[in-house]
């Protein structure tokens, strides 16, 4: 694999993304924008679930933190959009630590449930508090501007979120191959051994949560100004599940896979719009079929191309967190 061959397809893809608005109509542009949102969200969740192996069923909470922080600061206090970003990022990091801290001692399944609970609590808070506009949410969020140019059209937001998506993908990719990323994967594969090797598992897990939260909240902030109205309905359990779906569908820990997964999760139901009532039924069947025939995801991660054959990587992936069970099942079925 030389650098050129690796880079060419990426460049091609970016080119397609850049010219897409000129090929698509409003509707598909909106779908593409949503898909980009999902790419950012799914990459954020990928850090938590894919890299660190912490199952999170309440990721939409971070999305909500970002959206509401921006929404409130802009409508109530009249801040500029760009100034709200650091605040929402800082707040999300704090929330990430708050949610992460109690879960550190938990087994993987319980962890999932606690995150689910936190996700619901954040949504219920948004419904019940008056600062978040309660059930109707916040509306009339102003448009952001760069200098004197106001971002208002669909096209503007498409490019804004495209830039953020590219940044998120780059950041997550670099994190994945960094020392921190390797530590996460070590923890995921074998927590005790990781600790024995001198990895501070508490710090590392909290870091994973916080980074995931920051990426999610960034998407939320942009979501708020793009929609100009946000409501608790956007941050439901279903939203968390759909983001998780994107990650698992594409392939846990795999950057291109997660991008693909996000695009599919958004476009499939849209492509099925013509069949109305049947679309989520078909979507459900597709999910089951997909997991039956390709459980490792459409584009599984390959951690070290030069070293591990893909079969081994998949085996390692399947052992995550529940080696005992799987080993048992394997023996049983042997």
């Amino acid at each position, binding site marked *: 694999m030389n650098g050129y*061959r*690796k880079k*060419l*397809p*990426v460049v*091609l*893809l970016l080119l*397609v*993304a850049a010219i*897409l608005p000129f*090929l*698509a*109509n*409003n*509707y*598909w*542009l*909106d*779908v593409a924008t*949503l898909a980009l949102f999902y790419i950012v969200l799914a990459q954020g969740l990928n850090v938590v679930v894919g890299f660190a192996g912490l199952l999170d069923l309440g990721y939409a909470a971070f999305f909500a933190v970002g959206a509401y922080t921006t929404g409130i600061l802009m409508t109530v206090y009249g801040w500029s959009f760009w100034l709200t970003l650091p605040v929402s990022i800082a707040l999300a990091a704090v929330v990430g630590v708050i949610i992460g801290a109690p879960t550190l001692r938990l087994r993987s399944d319980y962890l999932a449930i606690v995150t689910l609970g936190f996700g619901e609590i954040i949504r219920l808070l948004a*419904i*019940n508090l008056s600062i978040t506009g*309660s*059930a*109707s*949410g916040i*509306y*009339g969020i102003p448009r952001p501007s760069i200098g004197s140019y106001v971002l208002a*059209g*669909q096209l503007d937001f498409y490019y804004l979120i495209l830039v953020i998506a590219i940044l998120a993908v780059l950041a997550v990719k670099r994190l994945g191959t960094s020392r921190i990323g390797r530590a996460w994967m070590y923890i995921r594969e074998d927590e005790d051994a990781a600790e024995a090797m001198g990895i501070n598992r508490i710090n590392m897990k909290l870091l994973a949560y916080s980074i995931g939260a920051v990426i999610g909240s960034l998407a939320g902030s942009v979501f708020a100004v793009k*929609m*100009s*109205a*946000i*409501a*608790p*309905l*956007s941050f439901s359990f279903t939203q968390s599940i759909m983001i998780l779906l994107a990650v698992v569908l594409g392939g846990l820990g795999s950057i*291109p896979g997660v991008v*693909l997964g996000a*695009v599919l999760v958004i*476009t499939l139901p*849209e*492509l099925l*719009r013509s069949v*109305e*009532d049947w*679309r*989520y039924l078909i979507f459900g069947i597709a999910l089951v079929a997909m997991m039956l025939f390709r459980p490792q995801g459409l*584009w599984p991660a390959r951690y070290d191309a030069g070293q591990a054959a893909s079969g081994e990587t998949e085996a390692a992936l399947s052992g995550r967190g529940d080696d005992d069970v799987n080993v048992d099942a394997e023996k049983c079925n042997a």
Partner: protein
Amino acid sequence: MKKWGSVVVAALLSLSLAVAGCANQGQGAADANEILVGVLLPVTGNNATDGKDMQNAIEMAVKKVNDSGGVLGKKLKIEVADDGCDPQMATTAANKLVSQNVVAVVGGYCSGATLPSSGVFKNANIPMIVPAANSAKLPAQGYDTLFLINGLTPDQAQTAADYMAANQAKKVALIHDNSAYAKDLADFAKAAVEKSGGTVIAYEAINPEEKDFSALVTKLKGLQPDATYFTGYYAAGGLLVKQFKQKAVPGLFLVGDGSFSEDVIKIAGADNAEGLLITATPTAEFIEGAEAFTTEYKQTYNNLAPGPFSALSYNAVNLLADALKRANSTERDAIKKALKETKDFQALGQTISFNAQNTLDTSNFAVLKVTGGKFILAK
């Protein structure tokens, strides 16, 4: 190598998607003899029930208009997009309608989803007639493309508060179901009740996806309210009415127009629903021709009773047809202008004229009472 191939595949995929998008522009667009009207409703998810009721009524109205010769020599054709009562889905669905070049839009059920979708239509300068969503926040946006034909929340709250005051109900319990509409109504009702000298002894919420409200009912029973006002939708409303009766909670029981449906009687049981009060814009039984609407609706749709917003959805289509005729054009600005100039348009249960905010200029909320399994105007 494998990776390389996959990326190319992905790139091709997205290209074909874009092409499909372009192709889509043509698809669904009306031919020269049709006027394409967008319909934006929740036809999947939790609120699919009401969404389908509204869609049925809209289809019925369109058929009627077309059977009697259509509009401007053309037939109306609807294009339904599912907003799922979700802001994000609603925006996408609205954009879909925009790209299909609809002339106007009828729809909007959940206020939470209608707030962002109305913005999409505003940007595209497409008039939107909203038959159901009635949060006060909708007209507050100041969009000249947005027309609400359901009465506004503050008016309804006032109607409820006046009725309670007139019936010496001083201690009032308010219950909403956490939807934007119901919470809005409960908030306004709270203000109205307090202004007319009453006290709100309980302000509660239920989760409409649940069925057991016994804890709340027992709690209210302990508080002995003079009146209880539930502002949410009928599925939970019917159950609440039933459970209130079973536990013999004292006082009047009122529900908002989200619970104005024969289903509320069916769910609660005719005995339990007897004496139930509803704040709503009266339809069906009171207006000539409305009886025919109910009968025809039931005939067309398998004996299904019209939902709470069926009549309003029906009216929305007729109003649009009328405006198209008056505008004598399918130009958006002309339609907007014609809608704006609507004067005393006679529809089922309402006379429509718009005020400066493009909402109804007169509130026609009334209090109905279930008597003998039927809705009768309460005195």
